[in-house]
């Protein structure tokens, strides 16, 4: 076997109150695609940050190309040959796509000035290879998350790296983009580059990874080739539960079709939602106990539809009715009061108050109910917070921990807890399982079912086609901000979904 590219030897990292990494070791060889898996909060992202010098380990050592490496930061690591795509898209939204792509290594002319023309040309060429054809001079922030992720990928691969680290690169990608990504990985793999690949989507791992390292609660629990390890065994490692138990419970938790009487009046009815440049008359209805999926490609207007219903997108025309009563004014406050709870796509930017505690975040939307005459009742808050922390199995040092210090999955659960605490009639979920581990994902999916069974209307948006199909009773397909089709009953299959999209496109 060839010399290892990267070795992590007995690394530990302690955060206030949490031991994020405890004596973790792992090895990466040239041309190897190494999966790093574990539940939310297992320490994957922390390990990556230790490798690239974002964090300093409390103990242990990182060795690169046979020599001890203590990188001063990502730049240092990048110079040495370790390129990273971080879990949350980490680009500068206000800067243009091209400038983001080339930041720190802009092409320069003889005077040492940035050669803007060449930069734009090259950027357009490079991104075309990733299926992105939009204007590279536009601010990056105007692009969809998936497109941004592709830019980050292109950026990481552009340098001649020896090691490429990818922390959940597919969490905001479309199937089509995932294929592009895999093509890139294959190319790198053939070029002898070592790849560390973090993902919660197990089928992906089996498609592209050679070996796997499993972390649980900051400790190494398994490391070895992936080929010999079946899914159930892998999951049992991750969850720390016996194989038999995992096999019995399975890991897709949607119950299938729900009991929705078609004659019941809809709990949510959206009529002709229009907003310049974004939505062109979207209409649909959701009955109590029904899960309606919104399908479509990136940029089809799914998130916009959700926001419009939640009153967070100024509308030119259109109405939203709850239980037959139209919303008086389409603002988040009124929508919430009427019983609409929304889980936004980007939990960091729009979902959570990261600086506040788990407790404050869960209670935020229901403060009026937990208070009398404007004074909050700590007791009532404690009760509701405890209920939901237990029900959603939120893993935190306690209700007073900063949400920003939780792992991605647990952050998502806190967000869901806040929605449920409002006792909504309609749930709007935009990518509810993005970045969530198998265990939590199953829990969230089961939860969606359970809530629907309790009579809630659910609107579900997911880039994970499987999840969308399995989870929804009906799928409304969008394109360019308009409804182009609807799948019901037997039609709710992946093929039908793809067909509808493709037909509309042709």
């Amino acid at each position: 076997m060839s010399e290892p590219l990267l070795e992590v030897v007995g690394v530990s990292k302690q955060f206030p109150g949490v031991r994020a990494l405890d004596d973790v070791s792992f090895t990466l060889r040239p041309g190897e695609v190494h999966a790093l898996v574990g539940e939310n909060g297992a320490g994957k992202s922390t390990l990556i940050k230790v490798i690239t010098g974002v964090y300093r380990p409390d103990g242990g050592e990182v060795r690169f190309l046979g020599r001890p490496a203590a990188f001063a930061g990502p730049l240092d690591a990048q110079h040495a040959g370790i390129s990273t795509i971080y879990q949350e898209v980490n680009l500068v939204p206000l800067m243009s796509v091209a400038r983001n792509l080339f930041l720190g290594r802009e092409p320069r002319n003889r005077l040492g000035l940035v050669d803007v023309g060449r930069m734009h040309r090259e950027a357009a060429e490079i991104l075309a290879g990733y299926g992105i054809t939009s204007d590279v001079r536009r601010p990056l922030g105007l692009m969809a998350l998936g497109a941004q992720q592709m830019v980050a990928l292109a950026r990481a691969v552009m340098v001649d790296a020896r090691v490429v680290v990818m922390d959940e690169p597919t969490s905001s990608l479309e199937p089509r983009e995932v294929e592009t990504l895999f093509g890139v990985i294959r190319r790198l793999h053939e070029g002898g580059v070592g790849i560390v690949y973090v993902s919660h989507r197990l089928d992906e791992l089996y498609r592209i990874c050679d070996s796997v390292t499993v972390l649980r609660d900051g400790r190494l629990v398994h490391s070895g080739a992936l080929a010999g390890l079946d899914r159930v065994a892998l999951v049992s490692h991750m969850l720390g539960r016996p194989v038999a138990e995992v096999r019995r419970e399975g890991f897709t938790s949607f119950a299938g079709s729900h009991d929705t009487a078609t004659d019941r009046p809809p709990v949510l009815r959206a009529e002709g939602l229009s907003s310049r440049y974004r939505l062109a008359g979207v209409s649909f209805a959701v009955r109590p106990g029904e899960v309606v999926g919104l399908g479509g490609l990136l940029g089809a207007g799914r998130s916009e539809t959700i926001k419009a219903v939640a009153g967070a997108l100024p509308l030119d025309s259109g109405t939203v009715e709850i239980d037959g009563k139209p919303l008086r004014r389409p603002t988040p406050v009124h929508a919430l009061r009427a019983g609409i709870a929304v889980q936004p796509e980007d939990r960091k930017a729009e979902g959570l108050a990261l600086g506040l505690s788990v407790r404050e975040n869960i209670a935020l939307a229901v403060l009026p109910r937990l208070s009398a005459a404007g004074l909050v009742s700590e007791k009532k808050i404690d009760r509701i917070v405890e209920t939901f922390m237990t029900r959603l199995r939120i893993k935190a040092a306690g209700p007073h921990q900063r949400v920003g210090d939780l792992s991605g999955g647990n952050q998502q659960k806190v967000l869901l807890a806040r929605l449920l605490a409002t006792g909504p009639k309609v749930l709007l979920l935009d990518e509810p399982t993005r970045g969530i581990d198998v265990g939590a994902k199953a829990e969230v999916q089961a939860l969606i079912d359970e809530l629907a069974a309790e009579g809630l209307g659910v609107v579900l948006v997911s880039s994970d086609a499987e999840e969308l199909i399995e989870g929804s009773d009906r799928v409304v397909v969008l394109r360019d901000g308009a409804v182009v089709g609807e799948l019901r009953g037997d039609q709710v299959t992946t093929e039908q979904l793809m067909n509808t999209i493709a037909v509309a496109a042709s």
Partner: protein
Amino acid sequence: MTLVADSATDRAETASQRTERIVELVQRQGALAVLAIVVVVGAVAFDSFRTYDNVGTVLISAAPPALIALGMTFVIVSGGIDLSVGSLYVLGGVLAAWASQYGVVAAFALPLAACGLFGLVQGLVIAYARLAPFIVTLAGLLGARGLMLALSGEGRETYLVQADPFKHFGTGELLGIGYPVYLVAGLFALGMLLLYRTRLGQSVYAIGGSEDAARLMGVRIRATQIRVYVLSGVLAGLAGAINAARLGSGVTVLGTGMELDAIAAVVIGGTLLTGGAGTLGGTIAGVLLLQVIQNLINQVGTVTSAWQTVISGSFIALVVVAQTYLTRLRRVASG
């Protein structure tokens, strides 16, 4: 794999793109547009406003604030703020006047070096101690003024400019426009190159746009921050020096509130106070706009001092509200 956008989307894209471009142009040049309107109105209303002399006066008066605003633009784009510039401006003037006894080179070198050093210290504290720029430079405001008072015998001593070439630089004119104006124009051109066309400039935008992302993308945050504050300090010192040359002495009773004027000019010019976006062209327009408004008030010649402040304040609010409205249009237009 061919579920790519069709021609319908393309058409929609171009339509929205066109609107966006137009709106973006107006927005980016918003301050310039308002400036043009104000100048035209002024020229129609007052004979004495459209004289060549008056243009010269506006430009030369705008020179020191423009330099300060130039540095402030870098600072604000990088996501920071510099409240110390007013004090550094006075300090620079006093030092320049004092050093002019050793010749014109010293008269420029000393204030630039001293104020640059002051900026360096602020930059170091901001970068390494990770304190909020607002508070660090607020302390800088006090510290620099204290230093200036200490150097001038509690402000009692006014050093007179000794070097004639230095004085001549401050008061001399070419084609009726003072020399400092040419210097400032040249520095703005350099500033534009620095901001738009160098890696440092890119880093400034990046750390202002998202410090976390910039760090993970390998931008050297600290080095960039430090440079930005040094630049701001140096430019404030230079502004002080050319003003000393123009006034012929190191006046100690200057500069209070100057930082707020500079911030106002930069923001009027369309730069986001939260960092990450802004142009130097806008800053020039912002500086000139504030000067022209003062000038117009003087042209009227009968506005009481109380009303002058009311007008200035309302005007700032008005322009910024207009800016914000345009920005929002742009955001809507581009999705």
